[in-house]
């Protein structure tokens, strides 16, 4: 059998399988003799491997220390598999929280459990549209529990194909199609994410680091909007809490996030290839369709004895001004309540709910979220007739 690199050309020769009689060896062993053997480069592999392992360990540790030194801490990544894991906890009579990151940060599961008698399942997702999850729960014949749905108008009526909708759809799809391998990967990843700070799938990956390079762009280049940096932690129940640095008045992190929300909540210009009027009509039709679909989902849920309450969570500063201007209450919120006939809690209607300040304009601090949840409970009980 050839073994040196000097004659590897012979070894690379394709087996001569075609149109020849099998040899005695083949007849006995069930196949032609092995004619192909991959060449192995002759190097000092053990020494190389030891050095590589040492470099990789040193590099990984250095990166971890650096990430911690600039404020990152270990926390779970919010991905479809974690969402699916939580979705599996939904029982027929569960209280389920759906919607966007405001429901995620502002609701404390312990307080809601005390007040509502059941521990809620947290299915809200950052930057996500509530509709795909609402539709999924409405279509789940086993579910006849209670839904607490956060409404950020721009996200709630996000048309199909936009990132908020895709986020929700991807999570729901994963919950229906998750493979045993994906499930196992999630179980294996969680202990790592709970101890390693640099494992941030939407922030400290090579891709995200490259996106931060300060390279000027062509005038009409479509630069995806920047997302806020790490400012919250997530536990295995998907309860999110704002980190202290973000809640600290006047912190640099707080200012940075505030400046990111404004462009993120500003409607993008219509695509150049669609006339403005057509685009407006298309968006209008998509919003009408959303109202119709949500009303149908709510009706379906109620027909089985399920309940739903829509909640508008606190927001502050320039972001509140922007949201009030672009998506006024009379536009989407009032229409939603009217179309669905479901109860709604708009935080500004109640003095005990409206006195909170969001440090980075969009979410409550961890401490305030506990107090807010405590004060929200009586309103939820009343709205849901508990």
């Amino acid at each position: 059998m050839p073994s040196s690199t000097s004659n590897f050309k012979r070894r690379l020769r394709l087996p001569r399988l075609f149109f020849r009689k099998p040899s005695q060896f083949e007849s006995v062993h069930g196949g032609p003799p092995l004619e192909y053997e991959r060449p192995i480069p002759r190097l000092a592999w053990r020494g190389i491997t030891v050095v590589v392992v040492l470099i990789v360990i040193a590099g990984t540790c250095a990166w971890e220390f650096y990430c911690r030194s600039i404020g990152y801490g270990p926390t779970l990544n919010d991905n479809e598999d974690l969402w699916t894991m939580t979705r599996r906890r939904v029982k027929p009579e569960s209280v389920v929280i759906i919607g966007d990151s405001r429901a995620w940060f502002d609701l404390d599961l312990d307080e809601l459990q005390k007040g509502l008698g059941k521990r809620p399942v947290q299915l809200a997702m950052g930057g996500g549209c509530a509709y795909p999850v609402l539709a999924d729960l409405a279509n789940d014949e086993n579910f006849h529990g209670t839904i607490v749905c956060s409404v950020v108008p721009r996200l709630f009526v996000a048309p199909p194909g936009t990132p908020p909708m895709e986020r929700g759809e991807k999570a729901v799809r994963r919950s229906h199609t998750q493979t045993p391998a994906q499930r196992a990967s999630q179980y294996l990843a969680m202990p790592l994410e709970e101890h390693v700070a640099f494992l941030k799938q939407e922030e400290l990956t090579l891709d995200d680091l490259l996106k931060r390079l300060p390279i000027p762009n062509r005038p009409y280049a479509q630069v995806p909007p920047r997302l806020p940096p790490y400012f919250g932690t997530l536990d295995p129940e998907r309860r999110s809490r704002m980190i202290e640095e973000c809640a600290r008045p006047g912190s640099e992190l707080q200012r940075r996030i505030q400046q990111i929300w404004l462009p993120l909540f500003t409607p993008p210009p219509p695509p150049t290839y669609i006339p403005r009027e057509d685009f407006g009509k298309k968006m209008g039709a998509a919003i009408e369709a959303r109202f119709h679909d949500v009303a149908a989902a709510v009706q379906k849920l109620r027909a089985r004895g399920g309940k739903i309450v829509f909640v508008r969570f606190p927001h502050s500063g320039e972001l509140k001004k922007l949201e009030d201007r672009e998506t006024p209450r009379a536009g989407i919120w009032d229409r939603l309540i009217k179309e669905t006939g479901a109860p709604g809690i708009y935080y500004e209607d109640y003095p005990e709910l409206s006195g909170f300040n969001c440090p980075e304009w969009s979410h409550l601090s961890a401490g305030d979220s506990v107090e807010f949840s405590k004060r929200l409970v009586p309103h939820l009980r009343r709205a849901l007739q508990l």
Partner: protein
Amino acid sequence: MLFNSLTFVVFFAVVLTAYWSMRSWNARKNLLVIASYVFYGAWNPPFAALLFSTTAMDFWLGKRIAKAKERHSRRVWLVGSVCMNLSMLGFFKYGNFLLQNFQWLLARIGIIYQPPHLDILLPVGISFYTFHSLSYTLDIYRGVLQPTKSLRDFVLAVSFFPQLVAGPIVRAGDFLPQLVRPPGLRAGQFLWGLLLMTLGLFEKIVLADTMLSGSADRIFGYAGPLAALDSWLGVMAFAGQIFFDFAGYSTCAIGAALCLGFHLKDNFRFPYAAIGFSDFWRRWHISLSTFLRDYLYIPLGGNQVRPVRAATNLVIVMFLGGLWHGAAWTFVVWGLLHGSYLVVERVIRVFFENKEWASNLTTRLLAGFATYVAVCVAWVFFRASDFTNAARMLRGMFGGHAHGDAILTTREMLQIALVTAGMILVHWSLRDSNIETAVTRLPRWVVTAAWALMACAIILTQGNSNAFIYFQF
């Protein structure tokens, strides 16, 4: 189970440890069969039963073919095997496609027929393992392979986990002999296998997914007119993405097999340094192109027929090669384009092959460039979601949109340019060599640094478990 997932890391470590700690060769083979079915079942357990049933059928049919004395009965058993495998593939992969086209045909003659939408889940890797299995009965029929006596060995040959779901298409005749006696590990083989796995993952996670896929997706997903530069860059990004994705998987598979003591052949040999399209197909997805050559092109007559017939055969083979990739007419057009490229190349060769200038460096470089451009044009049909999308891309590429949108960021453009330039440089510098020779020639510190850099980059990207493109085929 994906190579770029934590589950696979743990799975592979457990399998390797158990495999090399066992003394009995039979026990090791049993372990590999179980591991391969766990690997496959981790995606969708019921489909492991489908994999086993087709394998067992081919095992039995292989025996029948070998036992049959008359040519006619041998042929009957072979037809049985081919029909069984292709009907399985046809049902799962082409069921809805065939129904839609039937509906379209009926509509052309005025019959309105609404077919039921079959909610068929495509078993991952079905195109690959069907061919693994089919090669066995075909080779027995051709008289170049004796049927194996061990069902377990054949099951392992078809389902060996490194190559099970996305190739290379390893023929039973290449793998079964490796199961005769326990493999020995040559010096450095295990660690070289690990390096190849690192290289494969680096190609997939860093180069394909991080550097190129975002730009390709954005360009092919854009609904408006695109500027020529952006269109070309989008196609180049996809050309790089699909190479690194698929070659990355094959390299991982070869590396994983080496760690277990098995030898799989190369599936890619620096295809973007191809000069001409026949050269391209000797370098791209070699296991598929040789499969089609040996089991389809040569039986159709190969080169031993009249030129017109040979050209027709080429187009037929590439048509089916295109269809193998997916149940859509865009894949068929991709295959037909390659078929027509091959025919045109043959005609050109007739006229210019013996000219002196045809083999000088400038001509070769120009021919290589033209090959790359033509391959990129064909990729448009491969990647586009439909013909409208493909037409819009082609119009953009060839200046059809005078004021097309320039949507790529400078960073994306730089990433595409740097990765593509690096890829083409490496392909051209190694086009007549192989990676083993190149690594042997490199100084030790360069190999060490490159390996460490690739491993660090993989850790930095945190692998978000994107599926390999070829899984869907």
